[in-house]
């Protein structure tokens, strides 16, 4: 834990005050929870019927598993494609040729500035007109996720490259490497290591965003949850279960990110660049 800026190590009087604060604060929290429970009970949300499907409806887990598989599938494709696009765009963004750099900047800023939902609709609706055949929902989702996250990953890599000490570039030039070789062989490998925590955090965002697939009828986890709700009539319980699945997966990913961050701080002594430092443009999250 970081040292608190706001207060010192507490003396006996401050400790007593904190204790009183803990009791009062704890009581307020308990009252709030109690009110919520009462409200739930008054509306029959604790009836066994609402939970029964979780115990004796094997189909429920089968369906959720199907949905989860689709979610992970879409996320998997999008992660691979977005990484490739991200590296390519980062190369363009770091190029000294304005003819390469400026289009890369435009593409990155466009995809970061437009809602992902709009990109999904755009692919789903415009693709058949331009190409002549329908684009399956999975691919509309995957390609939209690729464009948006590719742009964000490019910015993450760029921030990483710019955080590498200048001496590295100078040394690479001194031994006769070209600009491209310097980038490819010296800067990029270091940048990706430094930015690994930020990249993993972006994967959490990507995984969460696959849930937008429901708008174009892609049967990911959330949509299968919604279909089950129509049959079982327990929206609160089922959507909470869906939320829980997302929370577990994403917590694991976030845990991985902070593990990598901690390991890097120990091995290289260099602080990894925090994800927030990348988000200065049109914004991620």
């Amino acid at each position, binding site marked *: 834990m970081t040292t608190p800026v*706001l207060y010192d190590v507490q003396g006996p009087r401050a400790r007593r005050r904190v204790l009183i604060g*803990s009791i009062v*604060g704890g009581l307020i929290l308990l009252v709030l929870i109690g009110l919520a429970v009462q409200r739930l009970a008054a509306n029959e949300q604790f009836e066994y019927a609402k939970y029964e499907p979780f115990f004796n409806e094997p189909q429920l887990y089968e369906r959720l598993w199907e949905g989860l598989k689709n979610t992970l599938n879409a996320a998997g494709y999008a992660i691979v494609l977005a990484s490739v696009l991200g590296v390519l765009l980062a190369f363009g963004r770091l190029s000294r040729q304005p003819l390469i750099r400026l289009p890369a900047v435009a593409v990155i800023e466009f995809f970061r*500035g437009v809602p992902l939902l709009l990109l999904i609709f755009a692919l789903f609706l415009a693709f058949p007109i331009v190409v002549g055949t329908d684009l399956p929902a999975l691919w509309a989702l995957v390609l939209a996720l690729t464009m948006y996250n590719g742009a964000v990953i490019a910015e993450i890599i760029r921030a990483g490259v710019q955080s590498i000490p200048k001496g590295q570039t100078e040394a690479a030039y001194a031994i006769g490497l070209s600009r491209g070789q310097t980038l490819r062989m010296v800067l990029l490998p270091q940048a990706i290591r430094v930015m690994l925590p930020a990249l993993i955090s972006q994967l959490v965002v990507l995984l969460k965003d696959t849930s937008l697939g429901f708008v174009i009828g892609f049967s990911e986890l959330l949509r299968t949850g919604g279909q089950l709700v129509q049959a079982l009539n327990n929206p609160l319980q089922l959507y909470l279960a869906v939320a829980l699945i*997302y929370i577990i997966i*994403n917590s694991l990913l976030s845990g991985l990110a902070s593990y990598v961050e901690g390991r890097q701080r120990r091995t290289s002594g260099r602080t990894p660049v925090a994800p927030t430092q990348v988000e200065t443009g049109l*914004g991620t999250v």
Partner: protein
Amino acid sequence: MNEVLDNLDVFVRGFRTTVSLTLLAAIGALIVGTLIAAMRVSPVPPLRWAGAAYVRLVRNTPLTVVFFLVVFGLPEVDVKLPFFRFAVLALTIYTAAFVAEAVRSGINSVAAGQAEASRSIGMTFGQTLRLVVLPQAFANIVPPLASVFIALLKNTSIASAFFIFEGVQAMNQLINSFGNAVIPIIAAAALAYLLLALLSAFLFGLLERAVSAGR
């Protein structure tokens, strides 16, 4: 192209809702988020835990799931509101977690030595907070807060799936009526979002310059 220009009023109506959703949820998230950040940096353990739990749970839940829980879950416990208010509520709950993180990291990024120095010259807790820590914290908070609110602007588009006529819904309605002009209609909607995002980035840039003027 004519389809877009002839129906500008539809777009204006939609994006007016986008803007009001953004502003209302931003105000709500700022209040709730600051409160949660205050809980997280307070010396009182139960409040710290509750704040941390909120951030952790909400940040790992997709906004769409928050929307489903609010729009279809709350009526189950007899909370029935117009869809617009549900949307503001869902966006507020979600964005507050990110605001809390921005505010907390802003406070934590003030070097501890600053507060120690002000205590050592005899300032009270209130003076330390008001004169030394918070001004520096605010300057640090503006850039991450800007990206949180621009993300919020884009996130309001999810309300289109919940019976709310905002920017993306306006786009969809025009596409339904003018199937032969899909691409200009989508381009116009994208342009509108980009302009709104640029405008917010510009305003936050001014704010950033204002709060960091003293440095």
